[in-house]
């Protein structure tokens, strides 16, 4: 009834190729942008920023990155945590070496460095697929964490082995360190998320995305009709790692502030982002958002409902979270391999016809 595409005719291929071909979707997208950029920064406080919004924004970037690799190109990766660490340490080294350069540039450069590292560790994908590739990327995860732990140059020889984000500003507004206002860090992350999502969407709906999906769906046929598998896989690793690197840099500089690599970017982080992608929906940009939102919200909701309202012990609530996430992964893999994004799509299909389904 309220979700209509009837009468929404396209008269040019440009109009048909746009990101949101249906008018209703387009307006909803604008509304979300207005709320995110125009309203939330004015009502945000430290609790909301640190408990929900910042982790959501940052994990969404990582999930988009991993989704490009796993969901669009079909190359399984368990190295996300390691690549986030590359982004974080690259950002740290850049921040401390060039204090006067803008944070925007540091974060983008950190993404670029991660992209190069991602391509390096993506090279095995030319020879191996599936589980074996997953194991190869797992090696990247452990190697990178080990590297950042053992080579003091990466943490500037600090006694604790940690890296701490120094205070930096953008246009005079402090965005890192303990004195940064919540709205500034929020906006900074939001800008990156919006840019990443738009870029990811543009890449996946165009030539690049089609070559990735061709490799995912049938690599031999793809090669015979003219896809260069080397180029397709390496660009997927590069773009994916670029986004993951940006999320790692933001995670360190704006969200945590101080990082011990094994704790912040360990194997659990790789799995967390992979779960976001699976629960959200493989091969869907919206799914990356949904998955990130879901897994960021779940512990908070459980804590509020379980510990605060029902008065359960906190350790039980924490364990309950693991149980629920595990059960959900299994449920989604069996019932709906395309995740929340597919549920959303089905809901839209139904809404198009509602209330007269025949």
């Amino acid at each position: 009834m309220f979700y209509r595409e009837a009468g929404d005719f396209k008269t040019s291929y440009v109009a048909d190729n746009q990101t949101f071909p249906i008018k209703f979707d387009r307006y909803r997208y604008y509304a979300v942008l207005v709320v995110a950029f125009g309203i939330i920064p004015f009502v945000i406080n430290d609790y909301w920023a640190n408990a929900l919004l910042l982790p959501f924004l940052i994990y969404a970037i990582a999930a988009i990155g991993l989704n490009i690799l796993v969901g669009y190109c079909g190359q399984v990766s368990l190295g996300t945590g390691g690549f986030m660490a590359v982004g974080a340490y690259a950002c740290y080294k850049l921040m401390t070496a060039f204090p006067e350069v803008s944070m925007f540039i540091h974060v983008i450069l950190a993404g670029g460095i991660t992209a190069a590292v991602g391509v390096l560790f993506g090279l095995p994908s030319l020879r191996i697929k599936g589980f074996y590739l997953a194991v190869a990327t797992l090696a990247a995860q452990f190697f990178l964490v080990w590297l950042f732990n053992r080579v003091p140059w990466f943490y500037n020889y600090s006694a604790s082995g940690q890296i701490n984000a120094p205070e930096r500003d953008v246009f005079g507004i402090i965005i890192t360190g303990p004195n940064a206002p919540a709205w500034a860090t929020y906006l900074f992350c939001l800008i990156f998320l919006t840019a990443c999502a738009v870029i990811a969407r543009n890449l996946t709906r165009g030539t690049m995305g089609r070559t990735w999906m061709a490799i995912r769906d049938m690599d031999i046929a793809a090669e015979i009709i003219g896809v260069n598998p080397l180029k397709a896989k390496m660009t997927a690793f590069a773009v994916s790692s670029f986004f993951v690197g940006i999320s790692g840099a933001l995670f360190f500089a704006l969200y945590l502030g101080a990082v011990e690599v094994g704790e912040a970017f360990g194997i659990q982080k790789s799995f967390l982002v992979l779960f976001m992608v699976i629960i959200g929906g493989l091969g869907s940009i919206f799914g990356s958002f949904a998955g990130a939102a879901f897994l960021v919200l779940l512990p908070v909701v459980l804590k509020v409902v379980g510990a605060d309202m029902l008065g359960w012990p906190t350790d039980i609530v924490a364990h309950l979270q693991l149980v629920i996430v595990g059960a959900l992964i299994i449920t989604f893999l069996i019932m709906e391999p395309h995740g929340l994004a597919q549920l959303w799509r089905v809901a839209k299909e139904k809404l198009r016809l509602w209330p007269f389904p025949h």
Partner: protein
Amino acid sequence: MLDASEGYITEDGRKIGGVVMEMKNITLRFGGVVAIKDISFDIREGEIRAIIGPNGAGKSSMLNVISGFYVPQEGEVWFHGQKRPPMRPYEVARQGIARTFQNIALFEGMSVLDNVMTGRLNYMQAGLFAQAIWRGKAEREETENREAVEKIIDFLEIQHIRKTPVSRLPYGLKKRVELARALAAEPKLLLLDEPMAGMNVEEKEDMSRFILDVNDEFGTTIALIEHDMGVVMDLSDRVVVMDYGKKIGDGTPDEVRNNQEVIDAYLGVAHD
């Protein structure tokens, strides 16, 4: 009727041009198994060339040699008057050779439109950054190629399933979408591996009509493998017959039909 250099006129009056592709003494082995033994034949511009033979004769291997998937141990492949060095399949595709597959090899997770658009990769040159911001060359290319693809979609009468995911389509339509994807590349040589396998009579008639139309309207040179003798004899201008990796016949359908070796291979012959 056959003229070695200048081409020939078919029975139905189409003019066939010079040699597009020439296979010279191709031998392909898998370990000790000889799949193709010293086979030579040519494919001429504008013709429909069939490769037939009993199961296991090496027809599909021959097509895989042409499309660069297998590299023969001996022999030369000449394309447009040039000897082709060993190259990867995607480089062969860039030269203008497109193909369909015996078992449908569509990209199941993509829509029909995206599948057919993938066939036009050779015409897409926009860089990563142009694509990332979807401006300039990237947007222009997308629109231009969409127009070309829509012509193919119209031609093959699959407008109604344009946005449907391929995985939801029935078999016959999938075969047609696969043909559309190959045609989208505007190939100089189109290879069809059993385009009518597993189809009913009606679907076969449709597909035959499309193959003839493609040849007629775009002047595409076609090499096809098919088991249905009636279809092969009706469609093709010249036929290569293979058996156990060897060429046992080559000529017009009538010549092949009356070739004693071919009859023996198909009907079996008493060993004494």
